[in-house]
């Protein structure tokens, strides 16, 4: 997947709710219009990010992908700050 992004947030090893807590904070610090790539190992983050952006004020979920990195499953989320 080739999604352009501006910053990366590594939350590998962080368990629920920390991937989302840290992503919210990082989006708050992101300039409007920029894209944050979040790399997580928590499988539950996939459905939770989908649910979160439905109610979130200024976040759009551009894409999600699952990649295998050296035998470890990574769940990658692309978040855009919209306002």
């Amino acid at each position, binding site marked *: 997947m080739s999604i352009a992004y501006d910053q990366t947030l590594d939350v590998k090893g962080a*368990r*629920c*709710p*920390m991937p*989302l*807590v840290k992503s*919210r*904070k990082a989006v708050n610090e992101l300039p409007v219009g920029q894209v944050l790539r979040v790399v997580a190992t928590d499988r*539950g983050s996939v*459905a*939770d990010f*989908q*649910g*979160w952006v439905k*109610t*979130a*004020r200024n976040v759009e979920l551009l894409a999600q992908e699952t990649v295998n990195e050296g035998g470890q499953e990574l769940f990658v989320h692309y978040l855009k700050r919209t306002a």
Partner: protein
Amino acid sequence: MTITEGQTAVATFTPAELYARILRDEPLFILDVRNEEEFRRSPIEGRANLTTVNIPYFEFIEDEDGATARVPAGREILVVCAKEGSSQYVAGVLQERGYRARYLEGGYVSWGNFYDVRDVVTAHWGRIVQIARPARGDLSFAVISGGKAALIDPMRHVQVYRDVVAEAGATLTHIFDTHVHADHISGGPALAQETGATYYVHAYDAIHPIDMLPAVIAYTHVQEGDRFEIGAVTITARWFPGHTLGQVNYRLDAPDSRSALFTGDGIFLRSFGRPDLGGKGEAWTPILHRSITERLPRMADDDTLILPAHFSTLDEGDANGVFAAPFAEVRATNDALRPRDEAEFTSYVLSHLPVFPPEYVEIKRVNIGLVTPCDGTANELELGKNICALSNA
């Protein structure tokens, strides 16, 4: 609140405490903070006085004031999530705002894997013990007599069965699966391997009905009329095809003339086992009809205690969470068993079939050894309550 990796101390509650309070029908308020999809798939169910509200944890992150305003003040709040972390977070938020909030230790996973053990029958000849998994509506049993023990439909977490047998000072000799289950993973093969007890299942169920592949686990074929002595009691296998082709009910006869019928997914207290989970509903429905109308009356007397493998709602059990009733009572109160000819029965089945959970095909593979899941995958496969019964709606 300040977000740190190590949260401040927030009080917890255990699945055992929750279940005891649900059985007493105490007024309880559960705040389930999982995402909506997971909540809908596997809500915690109770009796009349249990109130459950779903506010996903990320709504507390997004709008703490708005989300908190939806939580009732002045009463105890029991917070539940999938694996504990976000319920701890939300309970912390609520506690800082003056709520009496606690969170479930281990999250929904620990509730789903919680077992409740209690006696159904105690007599001079021994005991029948019910081992229930309340979140799933799954029931299994131990028969203990004369220093011997038999298990019926033991589930995946085998330690609870080791404990029941050990506490009784008994030796496990027989493990009976009434059929190859589709909704949960059996503990039978694993227990047989470690104890040397024989694992019995009907050979018709040892072929995956959709894959048409044979079992690769060790099992002993059981057939109609096979008799087993467990101490002072006799257990007789009674073939009851329909839910699966190899569904077997086990009749227990005790020296004091008491009898019980372990019906597996043959019949339940308020319903019966759906005939479509093998993917052959059209062909299996008439077979189930004959089992219910012709076979069942020959294997249960009026006072035979019916002990099924599932319940659909807690109110099928008594106040103590025992799910058992004499056959005469089941016949009178179970609307699904009302006499019907084959055409009426077929249309009843067709109009009461719940959804077919796709994971049930995979669970059957696991149960005959075609697939071996890790613990996390097993938890996901078994998430939520069983859907083995016809719907009563």
